[in-house]
């Protein structure tokens, strides 16, 4: 090889090395730019939902349920970037960097707003669910648990009826019921939606369908329509709703925004704001209904009270008359008792007096009659003596004066 050939060889090798260096620099710069871009996308659209199943044919990995412990691990992370190019994996460092600012001040009792990274939205729900479970299970049963569960559940209500149910359960200190309702919300998000049998909604294949079958089909279709929508979109909306309304603290709201994305966050908060407005209208309507009910009941009671006042007047008048009658009767009884029993002028006293008089008169009469009888006997005896003596005198005189003649 000539000297020129050797020089060219060295130059070629140097140029090749420089090219490789520049290529590596470019790749690293592009990775950094892509990382920044990805964080922007995440901020707008949120983390991947976390329900992607693995595919053996395409070697696609399933979304993880939590952060891997290996700092060099490749985390499945499907996010579509510029030009439809998808990011399929990220390193834990990117997520750590993304969540670095997500921590916030601890709320009373339960601190959800931490800077711990999660690989997707469902993983965040799982993380929060385990914290909530631990928090609630540590609360004393009854009022303590009810208060803790209500604090997490209060803002979840989507209708006034639901909100009032929560308030009623809190008032009744039914902590377990409130806890179960909160858990159900988590489970509704975590559980993959089932594919509903929508054949009932479709037009019947048979034009001459049996009326009984038609009725059954329509009932089933009604139930399907009234039941919860089991699609992915609603599941995402429910997830955002659940996370946003667990805690009002600024730190937690920031973390939720980073998890679900600014778009979903704004949409969910807006939807709940609209629901709050509806609830306010309903509460005001109910307040008016309460007033109408009160006015009607008050008017009824007022009419009743007026009628009863009139009746009370009649009854008290009757009572007054009865009192007067009773008083008169009592006076009459006293007068009759006086008439009968008065010790001086009463009939019984008079009777006793007259009886005493009669007894005295009878005694006197007896004495008088005895006396009279004695006198009459003396008179009779005297008369007998007189008659005898007159007879003797007559005889004596007759004897004497007849001898003289």
């Amino acid at each position, binding site marked *: *090889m000539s000297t020129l*050939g050797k020089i060219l060889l060295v130059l*070629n090798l140097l140029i090749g090395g420089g090219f490789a260096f520049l290529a590596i620099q470019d790749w690293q710069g592009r990775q950094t*730019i*892509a990382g920044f*871009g990805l964080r*922007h996308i995440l*901020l707008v659209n949120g983390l991947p939902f976390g329900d992607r199943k693995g595919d053996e044919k395409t070697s696609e990995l399933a979304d993880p349920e939590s952060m891997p412990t290996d700092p060099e691990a490749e985390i499945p992370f499907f996010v579509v970037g*510029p*030009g439809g*190019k998808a990011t399929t994996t990220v390193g834990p460092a990117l997520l750590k960097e993304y969540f670095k600012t997500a921590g916030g001040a601890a709320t009373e009792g339960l601190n959800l707003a931490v800077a711990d990274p999660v690989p997707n939205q469902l993983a965040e729900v799982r993380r929060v669910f385990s914290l909530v479970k631990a928090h609630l299970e540590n609360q004393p049963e009854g009022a303590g648990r009810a208060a803790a569960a209500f604090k997490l559940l209060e*803002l979840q209500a989507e209708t006034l009826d639901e909100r009032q149910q929560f308030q009623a359960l809190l008032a009744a200190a039914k902590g377990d019921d409130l806890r179960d309702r909160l858990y159900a919300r988590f489970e509704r998000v975590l559980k993959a939606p089932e594919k509903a049998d929508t054949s009932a909604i479709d037009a019947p294949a048979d034009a001459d369908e049996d009326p009984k079958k038609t009725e059954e089909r329509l009932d089933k279709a009604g139930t399907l329509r009234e039941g919860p929508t089991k699609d992915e979109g609603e599941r995402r909306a429910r997830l955002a709703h659940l996370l946003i309304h667990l805690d009002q603290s600024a730190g937690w709201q920031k973390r939720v925004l980073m998890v679900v994305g*600014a778009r979903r966050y*704004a949409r969910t*908060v*807006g939807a709940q*704001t609209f629901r*709050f*407005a509806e*609830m*306010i209208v309903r*509460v005001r309507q109910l307040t008016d209904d*309460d*007033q109408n009910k*009160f006015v009607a*009941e*008050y008017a009824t*009671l*007022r009419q009743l*009270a*007026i009628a009863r*006042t009139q009746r*009370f*007047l009649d*009854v008290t008048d009757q009572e007054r008359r*009865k009192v007067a009658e009773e008083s008169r*009767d*009592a006076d009459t*009884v006293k007068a*009759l008792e006086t*008439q*009968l029993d008065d010790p001086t002028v009463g009939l019984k006293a*008079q*009777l006793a007096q*007259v*009886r005493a008089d009669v007894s005295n*008169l009878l005694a*006197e009469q007896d004495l*008088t009659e005895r006396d009279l009888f004695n*006198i*009459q006997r003396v*008179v009779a005896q*005297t*008369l007998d*003596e*007189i008659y005898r*003596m*007159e007879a*003797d*005198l007559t005889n004596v005189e007759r004897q004497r004066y007849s001898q003289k003649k």
Partner: protein
Amino acid sequence: MTAIAKLLVFLTLIAGVGAAVFAAAVYTQRPGWFEDVPDGTAPRGHVVMNFKGLARETDAQGKAGAAASALWGQRLRDLRAAEVVRIERQRSYSKLLADARTADTGFFEFEEDESGRLNVATPGKAVKGPDGKNLSGADTLEARIAASIDRVVNVLEPKIAAHRTAQQKLQVQILDVQGKLTRQRTLREDLQNEASYLGAARVNVSEQKDTAQRRLDQLAARLAVFGIK
């Protein structure tokens, strides 16, 4: 030039062309993070995936989120305030209805505010009843009626009935005593008449006795003349 040199030149050429193709491919397929899409060219609602577009979207969504969050907080405060108003009014209704049932002054006049709501927190004048006094609660009045009826039925009427029974008994006794008294008075009168008669009879009999005694004495004296004792 040796065969090795020729081979190296050929390899270098291949490598150079390969590097140029690779560089061109990398450049053409670069992500458009820094591409500038003029405003209004992207379809409405479509987020341009570059730093500018994403920053704009982040800013817009952040503002929308902040506005929604502020409104959310305001609505929540309004909702809680509306609930508090309702609860307080329900308490007032309960108290007023309780008064309307049980209080001595049970009913009041209410004034309406601009929204048509009654001012139940500060009731107005008390409603007067047919008796001119403050209208009492309906249940209180019913209790008073019941108490009055109870007094009439369970106190006064039994007393009146007892008085009537006592009157009847006393009247029977009085009639009986009056009958006895009348009979006793008649008896006394008869006895008094009898006593009067007997007194006169006694005088007559005494006179008769005296007369008979005098006659006896007279006859005894006459017989004594004849020597008869």
